[in-house]
């Protein structure tokens, strides 16, 4: 395949992007419908490439197709320049895979954010995830201006008001119709102040968050304690919580995550377990650890799904999902945005 257009076209019969229906509260979202049906949901992260390479995106889509309700598309991940979340989300829509478009507050002010939200709505993208975003100082353009015009809580609030009240952040009406989104937010159960994290989650719920995806869980006892507080507050009945899990490819990656990635809690025992193994065995241990953690967290009260983040290692996702018995994904009756299942 040579041109961008031919690669963007789905290999299997693509589903038409569903029309937007105002006031449906994310009704076009398969993710929302799976969660509301009380089924255990799976989201998988897709990282857009750094170069303008549609083949790379298509390859990753082919690897991951069918393993999730919805696919999170990261927004300039780690504060490094990538193909945009919106563009790859549109490619997913055209291929009949449901995206969760991610918007960080780092790169755009409220003008840019709302414009991109409208654009996402034009393409029928049903899910959105609002984040603050990693600070540029950790990225490949540390010299750039960090925007942070509004914070993630206010971005959630803005999206909810765009949908439910059909107004922009300035209070003015959105002409003709409101965008419809199933609204997501994130929380890091491991970062201090630990006692405040459930309260911050409650803030996001009041702001309008309907599902929460957590930071990668490796410290299960800490996560269990966090979830206990969330359940005690009754938050698990108002917001669907998807626990973040992910396989670590090598001991080097584990050490990097433990020491260099802010807000990550990787216990020493995990690093020890991977040390001294051959390269293949390290990867195998990484998948085993991920599955063990996932098996534990999915039994914790209030956890309604998993968010699988295999950073720079999409090939591991099918194995993780199959090991956990999460493949194939459940079928929904009367599915308006039927996902094209993989052919073979």
């Amino acid at each position: 395949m040579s041109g961008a257009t031919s690669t963007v076209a789905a290999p299997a019969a693509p589903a038409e992007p569903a029309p937007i229906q105002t006031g449906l509260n994310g009704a076009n979202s398969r993710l929302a419908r799976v969660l509301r049906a009380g089924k255990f949901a799976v989201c998988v992260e897709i990282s857009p490439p750094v170069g303008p390479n549609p083949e790379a995106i298509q390859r990753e889509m082919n690897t991951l197709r069918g393993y999730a309700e919805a696919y999170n598309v990261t927004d300039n991940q780690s504060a490094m320049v990538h193909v945009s979340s919106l563009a790859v989300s549109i490619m997913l829509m055209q291929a009949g895979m449901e995206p969760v478009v991610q918007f960080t507050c780092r790169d755009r002010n409220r003008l840019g954010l709302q414009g991109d939200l409208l654009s996402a709505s034009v393409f029928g993208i049903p899910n959105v995830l609002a984040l603050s975003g990693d600070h540029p100082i950790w990225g490949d353009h540390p010299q750039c201006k960090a925007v942070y015009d509004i914070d993630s809580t206010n971005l959630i609030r803005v999206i909810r008001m765009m949908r439910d009240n059909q107004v922009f952040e300035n209070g003015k009406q959105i002409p003709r119709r409101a965008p419809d989104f199933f609204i997501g937010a994130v929380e890091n159960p491991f970062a201090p102040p630990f006692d405040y994290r459930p309260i911050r989650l409650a803030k996001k719920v009041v702001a309008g968050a309907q599902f929460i995806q957590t930071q990668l869980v490796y410290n299960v006892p800490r996560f269990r304690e966090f979830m206990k507080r969330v359940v005690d507050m009754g938050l698990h009945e108002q917001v669907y919580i998807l626990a973040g899990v992910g396989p670590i490819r090598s001991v080097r990656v584990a050490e990097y995550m433990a020491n260099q990635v802010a807000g990550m809690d990787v216990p020493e025992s995990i690093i020890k377990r991977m040390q001294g193994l051959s390269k293949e065995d390290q990867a195998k241990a990484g998948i085993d650890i991920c599955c063990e953690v996932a098996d534990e967290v999915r039994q914790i009260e209030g956890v309604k799904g998993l968010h699988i983040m295999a950073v720079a290692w999409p090939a591991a996702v099918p194995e993780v999902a199959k090991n956990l018995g999460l493949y194939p994904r459940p079928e929904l009756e009367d599915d308006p945005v039927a996902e094209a299942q993989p052919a073979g």
Partner: protein
Amino acid sequence: MPIRDYWQDRPAGLVWTWEATAALLRWMRPVFEKLGMERSSKIVKPPEELVKGVLFNCQNCAQCLLHYNGMTCPMNCPKQLRNGPCGGVRLNGKCEVKPEMDCVWVLGIKRVQKTPYAKEMYRLNPPVDWRLEGQASWVTYALERDLISTGSETGVRYATEAIRGGNGSQKEDA
């Protein structure tokens, strides 16, 4: 700064000073109204900048959250977050961007619980109105131009709305 930290860790005195100042500012409201926000700010800003600069490293956003955050200025956060700490806070409570600095939200949430404003850590703070940046927050406070609503929402909302046993009713479905 150790002296600054000493007072902020014992915020009762600072809070008392703020409340006295606030009462005075509210009493002066007619004067500010007559002069207008910009002219009032020109007069009030220099002393405010001096006091709050020394005590709190004030960033002049003019929509002051100090007493809602344990007399700790959240605009010192490199992401200028207004609704609590980001997910990047280091496990030792330091800022992810400036490893030598304590996270202003970690400090603020600890300190606010020693003040009568503890419930304000549940408050949903609206975004900054950047047109006000550089005005005197003492004036915007007196004129009630600070901490305005966002979008179609007027009035203050609290996270307790979502919490079982909080003040509000819970939502039905997520």
